[in-house]
């Protein structure tokens, strides 16, 4: 996979018109390389979705459902790394990029909140509905970097969806990682996603801390009440690798608090969300500076984001 280097602000540039590092896909010989006589087959079309079936729909919260998608032949459409994205479509409504929340041998799972035309339509469909699916896109979480380390997962609301793919990976490869700490919050108990994991599966995992909070007190809730950013301060987590995802305001305060608590910007990992259309770094709209979130992201470290224009 192509990995785009975050531009070094003091770097130098190649001579105008000359690429110093030829890409594997470069057409050599400039324009002349494209003579009709040498026309070869055009490769598989990365923008063409494959047919998929949504075999199971799980209601997570009043506005979030998890969709389980398999290929038309019953095999998994593709095998993403934790944190990678997939483009899901209902042809009559459109196409949008979602993070793959988890996967099994035959299915991809995507937890999707109803916010727009396509997602509202998705919330109306029944099991057995066919769809279009293409991917995987994006860089995913830096697994090698995380291996052997203690990991702190901090998520708010639907932000647990991308983080969950990494949590699941760590649980499945438990020996490869140190202590797992999960801090998760939502507006209310009803808004907590993946309740089965939160209250049944994850509590059984060895060497972990699981902290769940809701924004406002409820009669039936005997757990912690408060916002995620202040909760992590209360918990006085000792600095290690942190994976953060949630609504922009939560991310903003969480990152500030982590910095105060002594977390190194290179150890704070977050995933970005931008409007996307192609997923393959061509259509232009998901850029932050010269990075395309669909191709070079969506996962960035705080250190990388600090070097990029604050336009997201």
């Amino acid at each position, binding site marked *: 996979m192509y990995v785009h280097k975050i531009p070094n*602000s003091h770097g130098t540039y190649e001579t105008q018109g000359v*690429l110093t590092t030829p890409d594997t896909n470069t057409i050599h010989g*400039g*324009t*002349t390389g*494209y003579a009709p*006589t040498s026309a070869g087959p*055009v490769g598989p079309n990365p923008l063409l979705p494959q047919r998929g079936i949504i075999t199971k729909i799980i209601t997570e919260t009043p506005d979030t459902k998890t969709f389980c998608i398999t290929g038309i032949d019953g095999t998994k459409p593709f095998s993403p790394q934790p944190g990678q994205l997939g483009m899901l479509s209902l042809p009559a409504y459109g196409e949008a990029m979602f993070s793959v929340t988890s996967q099994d041998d035959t299915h991809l799972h995507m937890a999707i909140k109803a916010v727009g035309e396509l997602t509202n339509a998705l919330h109306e469909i029944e099991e057995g509905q066919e769809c279009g699916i293409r991917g995987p896109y994006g860089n995913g979480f830096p697994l090698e970097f995380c291996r052997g380390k203690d990991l702190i997962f901090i998520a708010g609301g639907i932000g647990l969806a991308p983080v969950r793919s990494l949590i699941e990976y760590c649980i499945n490869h438990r020996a490869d990682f140190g202590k797992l700490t999960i801090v998760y919050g939502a507006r209310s108990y009803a808004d907590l996603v993946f309740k089965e994991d939160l209250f049944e599966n994850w509590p059984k995992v060895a060497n972990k801390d699981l902290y769940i909070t809701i924004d406002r007190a409820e009669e039936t809730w005997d757990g912690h009440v408060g916002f995620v950013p202040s909760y992590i301060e209360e918990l006085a987590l000792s600095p290690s690798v942190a994976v953060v995802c949630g609504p922009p305001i939560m991310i903003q305060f969480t990152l500030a608090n982590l910095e105060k608590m002594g977390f190194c910007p290179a150890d704070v990992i977050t995933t970005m969300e*931008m409007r996307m259309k192609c997923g393959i770094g061509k259509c232009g709209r998901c850029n932050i500076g010269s990075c395309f979130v669909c191709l070079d992201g969506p996962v960035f470290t705080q250190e990388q984001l600090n070097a990029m224009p604050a336009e997201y």
Partner: protein
Amino acid sequence: MRKIAKTRIDDVLRALAPRYDLYVPVEGATTMRTPTATLWQEGLENASRFRLYEEGLPLYWRTNTGLSPKDLFFPQTEKMYTAISQGKTVEIKEESTNAWPIILFGVRSCDIASIDCMDRVFLQKGYEDTYYKNRRQRTLIFALGCSTHEDTCFCTSMGIDPKASPTADVQISDLGDAFGFTAQSPSGQQILASIDSLMSDAYTAQPVSPDPMLINVNLEGVTEKLETMFDHPLWDELSPRCIGCGTCTFLCPTCYCFDINHKSPTHAHIVKQRSWDSCMFVDYTCMAGGHNPRPSKTERVRNRFLDKLLYNRQRHGRVFCVGCGRCVSKCPVSLEIATVIQKIQAAEVTP
């Protein structure tokens, strides 16, 4: 070099047209010429552009076309696939591809440089774009050297030679009363050989040189300077003037942004297509939940010029302006790249 009198250029085109999809620069007003209507032929003005050659089309050789040839590789709206929903099933049908060879005849140096920009975007960096590649790889390019220029041209400031495009398959030179042809690739050689009987030797003919351009901008150091100018007041100063239309981006030969959308003959039957989009439009970056990372003109104007002069240099290795002057000529409010480069050069930055 071999040559043919300008008055006989139709002979060359007639010889090529049966074997290739031949695209030639055509004058504007004539695009509505149809056999049934003669009265009002000149009634509709229009910008000059590349069109499929037909006998009798008024060809436009004087300067560059109003619309760049980018739409031949990257049409403004292009079918991608069809999807038919029936009950719960969805069937996806790919568009069939065409293998017929194309000749792009009479492309100017600036637009050839822009094709290099487009190649970098659509054929490199991780993925090849199938739709672009399908057209691009069966196209031969005949470059046409400029003998004159528009007031708005500034390709020389961008390091481009208006008379020569070494990467084209054939270079056509303006010899005054004749066009000279020089093959620059094996395929170019083959084609020229096939029409050689129409031409005579040009011996020592020299291409006519254009006068010095009226607009001169200094690109040196602009990229490096822009790295420090993201928060510069220049963008607040420039952006009020922008009216947020898509003229600059749609005319720009290196602007490649697109939208993916569909049209639905019926709800069950949709045609997925992609079409040019513009970073100047408000909804371009607006997300489903309503959040917009570039909510005002300041961010959008800044992004466009940083993209042309900084981001693409970082990402694709070259500045994405070729000095064709289309934005200089057509921006309704003269917020064009030549002026902006001058303003960047003049801007004060605190280290």
